[in-house]
């Protein structure tokens, strides 16, 4: 079975998830029904005006109809209008999305690179000092709050050493990206290092690595080509799950570094009770997560032929 067929089948499987998560966002919206308008209007809102706005937002129809209309609007790219700024939520999201994606990709790239390197080193030096040191750092890494790590990095590298700017987007200057990416990716360096280590340690016991050595392959080739490729599945799974976790850190990291992304949009909107923006951003975070795990699933197929054939039989 080819990658394309696999991708197609996975897409079909996504439908219920997408339906489910829009339902959740819709439920949250329904939960807050009425109040947002009142909140946006203030305590002394004229009942007639409130009723008009409720009608304008379609809040007077039965729930199932509202959900249908909600879905239809989403499909048209209509995420509603911001209470506060009176602009389409979609515009706000489109404006903020690139910064978040840029940060998330940089963070994930960094985490994978450092995490795999540390994990391989630890596995190869299994039981020795380097292993212990790597794993201690990884454990401390996953125990540190994302935003606190960010502030410590600012103190050390921006304030004390002056290597990088303290915060801001800096018109896309890469130096502005370094500290936020380390902050957001830091947690995952630890996770990925731990998973790489345990997964590779398991693979290192496999007979086919002995076969590879008996062939006369260099130790590096044995480890990185024959070993790591087989250890890749659990690591990929973790990256897939990890992207969701990574985005958990996005609102925090973006707040610490004044990064103009989706996370800060969400936090600001939450503080302002601008519910359409909150729900739009929330939905988008979920869509990014789902999209990322879809991509990772496709990577499975490339990484391990057994998945491809098992999938084909089912």
């Amino acid at each position, binding site marked *: 079975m080819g990658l394309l067929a696999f991708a197609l089948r996975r897409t079909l499987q996504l439908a*219920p*998830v997408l*339906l*489910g*998560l829009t*339902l*959740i*966002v819709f439920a*949250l919206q329904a*939960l*807050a029904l009425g*109040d947002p308008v009142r*909140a946006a209007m203030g305590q002394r809102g004229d009942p007639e005006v409130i009723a008009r706005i409720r009608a304008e937002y379609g809040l007077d129809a039965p729930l199932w109809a509202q959900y249908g209309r909600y879905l239809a609007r989403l499909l048209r790219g209509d995420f509603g209008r911001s209470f506060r700024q009176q602009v389409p939520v979609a515009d706000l999201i489109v404006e903020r999305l690139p910064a978040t994606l840029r940060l998330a990709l940089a963070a994930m790239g960094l985490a994978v690179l450092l995490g795999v390197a540390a994990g391989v080193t630890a596995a190869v030096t299994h*039981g020795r000092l380097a292993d*212990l040191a790597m794993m201690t750092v990884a*454990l*401390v890494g*996953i*125990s*540190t*709050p*994302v*935003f*606190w790590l960010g*502030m*410590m990095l*600012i*103190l050390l590298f921006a*304030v004390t050493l002056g290597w990088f700017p*303290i915060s801001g987007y800096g018109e896309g200057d890469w130096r502005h990206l370094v500290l936020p990416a380390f902050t957001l990716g830091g947690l995952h360096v630890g996770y990925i290092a731990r998973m790489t280590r345990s997964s590779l340690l398991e693979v290192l016991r496999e007979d086919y690595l002995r076969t590879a050595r008996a062939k006369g392959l260099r130790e590096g080739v044995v480890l990185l080509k024959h070993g790591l490729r087989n250890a890749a599945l659990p690591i990929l799974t973790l990256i897939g799950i990890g992207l*969701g*976790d990574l*985005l*958990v*850190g*996005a*609102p*925090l990291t973006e*707040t*610490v570094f004044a990064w103009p992304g989706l*996370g800060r949009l*969400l*936090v600001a*909107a*939450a*503080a302002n*009770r601008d*519910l359409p923006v*909150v*729900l739009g*951003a*929330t939905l988008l*975070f*979920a869509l990014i*997560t*789902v999209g990322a795990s879809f991509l990772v699933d496709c990577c499975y197929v490339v990484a391990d032929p057994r998945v491809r054939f098992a999938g084909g039989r089912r």
Partner: protein
Amino acid sequence: MRGLLKHRGALAGTVLLLTVLAAALLAPVLAPYDPARVPTDLAARSMRPPGREHWLGTDLLGRDLLSRILYGARVSLLVGLAVALLTAALGAGVGLLAGFYAGTIDAVFMRLTDAIMAFPTLVLAIAAVAILDQPGLLALILVLAAVQWTAVARLIRGQALSLREREFVSAAYALGARDLRILVRHLLPNCLAPLLVSTTFGVASNILAEAGLSFLGLGIQPPAVSWGSLLSEGAVYLTAKPWLVIFPGLAISLTVLGCNLAGDGLRDLLGPHPAG
């Protein structure tokens, strides 16, 4: 050698956790000052660096940071533990039912958790907090439990799914036991070990979640104090008065490290699939 190291880690984690717990419980005894006391002397109402009088320095209003961290521990740990217990109860209940009855119930359960888990937990919590409009402590605990229970439920469902095929379940049926009895007497006890491990890790992630929400100004509100809200207050003065950020963050990191160490140790001790 490795086993010893592991257990040494677990021991260190447990000691760390017990220390933090004791510090939180004994806060009124241990705290050198009233955490809310604002000095009457106007000159003292400033952020003083750590020194002999105030070991960890003082905050914007001249309040003793050490005392505030000790009292903050009570809220942070309370939220961490309460959410973990709620999550364990909810997760175990739903997970057992889904795994035991399989079929339609399970399919609905899986799709529901798929959908919930698509949201980054903190994002969902932020949305919920926004809708609830400055929830109190109890509401905050409920919100965090509502976004965190799915992982536990999935874990227990997996256990239940494999347990229901085991001989002792068939044997219990053969002896005329009813579903409820089998669930409570046979499946639940066999799920306790993984539940305990995941709850230990859960306390860590709950403390982090609370700290995150409070840091964003969406969690614990003044005058209540948690480690996250201390960080939120201190963040503004990060570059000028770094101790306001360093010490509360250390408190969180050490506590979470303790949970992770203890969790790693428990997992090794109980095995990854103690029932299998």
